[in-house]
């Protein structure tokens, strides 16, 4: 009898309306009924996430040929390759919603689809590679850990794989920073300079306060999103400040104070004007990043066409 009940419960789980599934915290799968708004929201978010991974290869890629040791080169290559792989996982997951990778790339090129703002800043010195791994990947992982519980099954599964793989990314960045902070005066200066330039853009990665995020209501209702931007940002600050202190880096925020009452840090105001300006195309590297992606895409077209042409010829033969 007990078994029967258990099976019925399982059965209940597998059926029912979209709302009932969301209510029960069941994953939504590609063939399930879903509101058009849910599908569109996911396509927008997942393709943006995928584009961010791929565009994010560029600033770090800027240092591959100049990585200062064979070990550093290996780590950096493996990390950037991971970003490409993660873009690939996310494109594939988004494709289950009925949009193709070609279409997503076309949307990126037309400006309809966005990517994370952070990659519109330049990677100027080797310390930037440390800062990107430690701060940018550190911020991303806070967000991605939360997304492992997102309601769309393929997205959630991609995030689980991504989080598992990214666990070394932040460590490699922090290791670079730590090594430089225990190095020469020039290295310490370089590390602090990178910290100064990447800290605030990293905080902006979580997005504006919820009241400023037009679509966040639906995202919460549909359980695509599980934590608020401010909650995630706070989590990131609280764990990162201590790490900075350990290696002697100063967080470039004069108003940063430990708040004993809320058991977390208070921080100074974020320059949202800069954020919006960069989103609107005025960051130092917006044009460069897009131009690079378009160029590579165009240069690869003859290869993709040749592969398809060869397949068609082979199919005719067989």
């Amino acid at each position, binding site marked *: 009898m007990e078994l029967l009940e258990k099976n019925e419960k399982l*059965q209940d789980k597998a059926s029912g309306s979209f709302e009932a599934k969301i209510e029960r915290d069941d994953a939504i799968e590609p*063939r399930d*009924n879903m509101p058009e708004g849910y599908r569109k929201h996911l396509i927008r978010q997942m393709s943006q996430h995928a584009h961010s991974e791929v565009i994010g290869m560029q600033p770090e890629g800027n240092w591959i040929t100049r990585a200062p040791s064979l070990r550093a080169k290996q780590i950096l290559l493996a990390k950037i390759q991971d970003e490409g*792989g993660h873009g690939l*996982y996310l494109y*594939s997951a988004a494709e289950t919603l009925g949009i193709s990778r070609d279409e997503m790339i076309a949307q990126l090129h037309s400006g309809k689809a966005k990517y994370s703002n952070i990659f519109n800043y330049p990677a100027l010195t080797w310390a930037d590679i440390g800062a990107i791994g430690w701060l940018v990947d550190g911020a991303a992982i806070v967000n991605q850990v939360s997304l492992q519980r997102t309601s769309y099954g393929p997205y959630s599964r991609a995030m689980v794989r991504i989080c598992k793989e990214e666990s070394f990314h932040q460590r490699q960045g922090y290791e670079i920073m730590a090594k430089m902070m225990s190095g020469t005066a020039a290295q310490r200066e370089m590390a602090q300079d990178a910290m100064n330039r990447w800290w605030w853009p990293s905080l902006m990665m979580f997005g504006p306060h919820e009241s400023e995020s037009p679509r966040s209501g639906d995202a919460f209702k549909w359980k695509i999103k599980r934590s608020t931007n401010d909650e995630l940002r706070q989590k990131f600050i609280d764990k990162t400040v201590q790490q900075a202190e350990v290696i002697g880096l100063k967080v470039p925020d004069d108003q940063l104070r430990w708040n004993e009452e809320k058991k977390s840090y208070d921080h100074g105001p974020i320059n949202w004007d800069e954020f919006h300006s960069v989103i609107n195309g005025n960051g130092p590297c917006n044009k460069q990043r897009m131009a690079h992606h378009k160029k590579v895409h165009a240069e690869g077209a003859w290869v993709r066409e040749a592969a*398809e042409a060869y397949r068609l010829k082979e199919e005719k033969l067989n």
Partner: protein
Amino acid sequence: MDTQLGKWEVFMQAKPGANYIHAGAIHASDKKMALQNARDTYTRRGEGTSIWVVPTDAIVASNPDDNDMFFDPSNDKTYRLPTFYVMPEGAKAI
């Protein structure tokens, strides 16, 4: 129109004898490329001993709207499960 090549689903076997489990997807124009792309994408951390690739459009999925007729009828057949049976006290290795 640009092409990003066809989509393939990737199934990985983690160790000899294990089930093949869906890992994700890749794009490729032919079988050889599909296998190599799956290898280069999904075994970067030594995750696999064997790979299957299947063109995505060759996969047939059950329709969630049919779930009641597909899956409900097997729910009450608990006699298929070993725990359904009452074994005499003291019987061993059964």
